[in-house]
Every structure is written in C-alpha cells, then in structure tokens.
C-alpha cells in the first residue's frame, strides 16, 4: 500500500514537472507588412489567434497560424490576401517548428529580458523552408513573452504577386511576432 502511494505521488510530481516546463498561448499575435514604397496604402494584416508552445526544458518552439484569421482594415484586401496570394482555402495553416539555438542563457525562473536566436522550419502556402530569426524572451511574473521581427521573401513560399500590382506589393514581408505565454498546468 505504501509503495502504491509513493508511486502515485511520484507520477503526480513527474506530471507536474513536465507541465511546468511548457508555456503556451492560443491568442498570440502575428502581423505582417508587405507595403512597398509604391503602395498606395499600407498592406498590413493582423492575426490574434496564434497558438504557440515553448518547452523551456528543450527550447523547442512551435507555432500554428490559421491564415483565414488574418484581418485587414479593408475587406477587399483581405479577400485578395486569401484568394490570390496565400490561397487560404487550399493552405489553411502556417506552421513553425523549431528551437532556441543560441543567445543568452535563459533563466526561466528569474524575471529578465533575454536575446535569443530561433531556428526551425516554416511551412506556408504548402512550402517548407529553414528559417532563422532573432528574438526576445521576456520572463516576468511567471509568464514568458516571445517577440521577434523578421523578414521572408514571398516567392520562397510560392506566393506570386500579379504583374498588374507587382510594384505595389513588397516582395519581402516583414513579420512581427508577439506571444504572451502562460504556464501549462
């Protein structure tokens, strides 16, 4: 009986330790900016429903972004984005699977700002590419904020810009990530 209780307690401790290693959100933000110098207006979209998980033990970082959830100021721009550029009916999701590979050693138990480098595979529009980006982890009050700004060539993911608006849409999109992660209980 005593052994059984010890086993149950050990399993409980193991389970809790594993859960506390992971931090997550389902309401992270990713925005992109494809405004070119000749754009008549800002070409910016915002997604407020990004799922992000960081395993503090391994440094693994995973994100999932539903393309239909990008919102634009103008409905027409949103329709063009979904239908003509990212083809979100055909490719509904963008995913990133990677890990923190370099940077300041992060002490997740201590409040602070840590500069890191993340490397992994980004799958968008059915194409997968190795990406590397610098980012910032802010540990504060038991939560972790993940922030990064990086650029990606649209052509690398098979996103083609129609000739008619070729000079009005930037060939490189600036992507801004901002996710506030809570501990997974």
């Amino acid at each position, binding site marked *: 009986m005593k052994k059984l209780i010890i086993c149950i307690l050990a399993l409980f401790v193991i389970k809790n330790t594993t859960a506390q290693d992971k931090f997550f959100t389902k309401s992270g933000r990713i925005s992109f900016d494809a405004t070119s110098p000749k754009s008549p207006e800002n070409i910016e979209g915002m997604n407020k429903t990004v799922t992000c998980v960081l395993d503090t033990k391994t440094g693994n970082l995973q994100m*999932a972004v*539903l393309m239909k959830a990008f919102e634009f*100021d103008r*409905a027409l721009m949103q329709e063009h984005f979904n239908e003509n550029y990212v083809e979100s009916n055909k490719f509904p999701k963008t995913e990133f699977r990677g890990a923190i590979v370099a940077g300041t050693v992060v002490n997740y138990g201590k409040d602070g700002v840590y500069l890191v480098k993340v490397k992994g595979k980004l799958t968008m529009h059915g194409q997968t590419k190795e990406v590397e980006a610098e980012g910032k982890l802010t540990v504060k009050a038991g939560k972790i904020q993940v922030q990064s700004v990086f650029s990606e060539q649209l052509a690398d993911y098979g996103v083609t810009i129609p000739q008619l608006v070729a000079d009005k849409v930037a060939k490189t999109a600036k992507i801004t990530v901002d996710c506030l992660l809570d501990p997974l209980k």
Partner: protein
Amino acid sequence: MSKKTITRILIPVLVLLVLGAVYVYREFNRKAPDTADLTPAYELTGTQLLEAFQQDEKKANTLYLGKVLAVTGMIKSQSSDSAGVQTLVIGDTAFLSSVRCIMNGDPGSVTGPFSTGTRITIKGICTGYNADDMGLGADVLLNRSVPQNLLKP
C-alpha cells in the same frame, strides 16, 4: 459631328465614368460586414463542429472554412487579451478541445460579461482548425463573433 451629337455621346460617357469611380471608391474602402447582419450558412453544436473537423479535416474545411456559423454550446471559459479582445471558449470542461470564439472587437460591441456554464449560441466566421498536435487540445476558431442575444431583430 455636331455639338448636339457630341453632347449626346459625352454625357452618358461621363455618367458611366462617375458611376465607375464611385463603385471603385466604395469597393476599395469597403469594410468587413458586421457578423450580426449575416445569415449563418450552418447552425450546429460545438460538439458537432469539432467532430466534423476531427473526423475529416479536409471535408470540414470545404464545408465550413470562411463561412458564417451559428454554434451552440456551453461557455467553458472566457478571457481578454491585453488589447481587450474577448474570447469565449465553448465546449465540455471534461475535454481540452473546444470552439474558440474571438468576439467582435469593434467599438460599441459590448459582449460581456458571460457566466461560465451558460448555454449560448454564437455566430462567427470559421477561420479553421488546429489539431491537437501540441498537447493543448484541438480547436475550431470563429472570428468576429457575436452572441445570439446581440443579434439584430
């Protein structure tokens, strides 16, 4: 060509040009319609919606992606992000999987507070499905959601 003939041709051309310009201006500045004004393409429960995606994601995407859905279920939890955008989570508290309804954040669209455990129908645009491949449970997402009790008469 007489002056009268030129006028007869010019006036319709000008009218067409003005109408075209108005159309282009309105189309360019068009905002996404208020979800409360849209008729749902499908009315179903949160469980039915989740099961449809879990059984055949491709088929469910074809049916529901980008469509207006009226989803009924129990409010499992609710939260607001730093910008005040409210999310209502519909589902069974015994399971991790749920339907996440991101409420319409337009000014004046007061949506809460709601009581956890209340049964509600929410109308929103389906933006897709996140399978449970991160250990967080699977989710179907609805954007620009409005609760049934805010539907316009």
